[in-house]
């Protein structure tokens, strides 16, 4: 009887460990693989961020997720990172589709948009088309095509070759104070329009 009772308690401890570990890893976005950085308490047109990134003020779930997916990120006074994993219809961004990314002037001294795969790494291709940034668009309005092959018109391009399901990170360096105070007012977020998928319009 005593042995049976001890085994029941042992099973409870083992199950509790598994539940605690699994729930923590899941809620912090550390498990399973492939979950991304499109989370946080700031949501500007589907572009998500947590302005506590890089600071002790972040909650433990944010801290754990950033440690995994945004290690060595700067605090918001220096740079703000916004991530989006879906297009304007809410569908997951996929390598098989072609998208038009467009925007205007950004409320920061410098900006870039970079594509990352499901493991938060640059996609394994040699296209040399990993991002677009402020340097290429000095007149404010800008647009680029996101596709696995270079667009025929020779315009700005971000290659999604080898990315699988991916997300985009908008970096805003030296953000305007207005952005930090009221991101939804200060930032007109870039649009992500899906143009076609797998050859179909």
């Amino acid at each position, binding site marked *: 009887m005593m042995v049976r009772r001890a085994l029941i308690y042992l099973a409870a401890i083992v199950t509790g460990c598994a539940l*605690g570990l699994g729930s923590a890893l899941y809620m912090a976005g550390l498990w399973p693989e492939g979950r991304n*950085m499109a989370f946080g308490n700031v949501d500007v047109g589907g572009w998500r961020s947590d302005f506590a990134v*890089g600071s002790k003020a972040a909650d433990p779930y944010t801290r754990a997720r950033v440690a995994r997916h945004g290690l*060595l990120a700067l605090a918001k006074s*220096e740079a703000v990172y916004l991530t989006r994993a879906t297009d304007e219809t809410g569908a997951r961004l996929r390598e098989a589709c072609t998208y038009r990314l467009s925007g205007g002037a950004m409320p920061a001294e*410098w900006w870039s948009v970079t594509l990352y795969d499901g493991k938060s790494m640059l996609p*394994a*291709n040699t296209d*040399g088309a990993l991002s677009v*940034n402020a340097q290429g668009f000095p007149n404010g309005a800008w647009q680029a095509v996101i596709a696995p092959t270079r667009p025929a018109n020779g315009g700005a391009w971000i290659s999604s070759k080898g990315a699988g399901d991916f997300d985009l990170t908008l970096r805003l360096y030296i953000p305007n104070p207005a952005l930090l105070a009221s991101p939804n007012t200060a930032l007109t977020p870039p649009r992500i329009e899906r143009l076609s998928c797998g050859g179909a319009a």
Partner: protein
Amino acid sequence: MKRWIGPLAVLLLVAAGVHALTLHRAPAVIMDRALDALAKRGVALHAFTTPQRVTPQTQQVVRSSPDLYYALCRYDLSAPGSQLDVTMGGWPGYQSLAFFDAQTDNFATLRGTGREVTVRLLPPGSAAQKGAIVSPSTKGVILIRRLAPDAARFDAAVEAGRADTCRLERART
């Protein structure tokens, strides 16, 4: 039914404890692994390592930007009386000197657009000093970012990086 209350309570308590412990320990474990990985990839202890331009083939850290020059220096201030003298050389565009502790917190960032920046990094518990930053942990990593969105700017950033230093010294008495 009563006999299951005890095991159920144990299960819930253990689950809550392991949940909290996992969250608390995750940043430190991830940073520890990252520091080990950086060491294996040649990032020096107490010296800025001249970087390669970030590409899918050379990336060392998650979510690196291909538009930036990144120079890393790992540090360890566990030896008594040790401190770090850090210099970020001049660069005409945007650059920053960022300090990360063993919990992944960005505990200090100094912007240095158009100028050189020099600072001392002191071990945890040190008294505040002018021109110095106290690290919350004995180990961590220092990261210089320079805006270098094309190959020519990156090559220029490498030249500017020759003036960067990250040197372990004994505290002056």
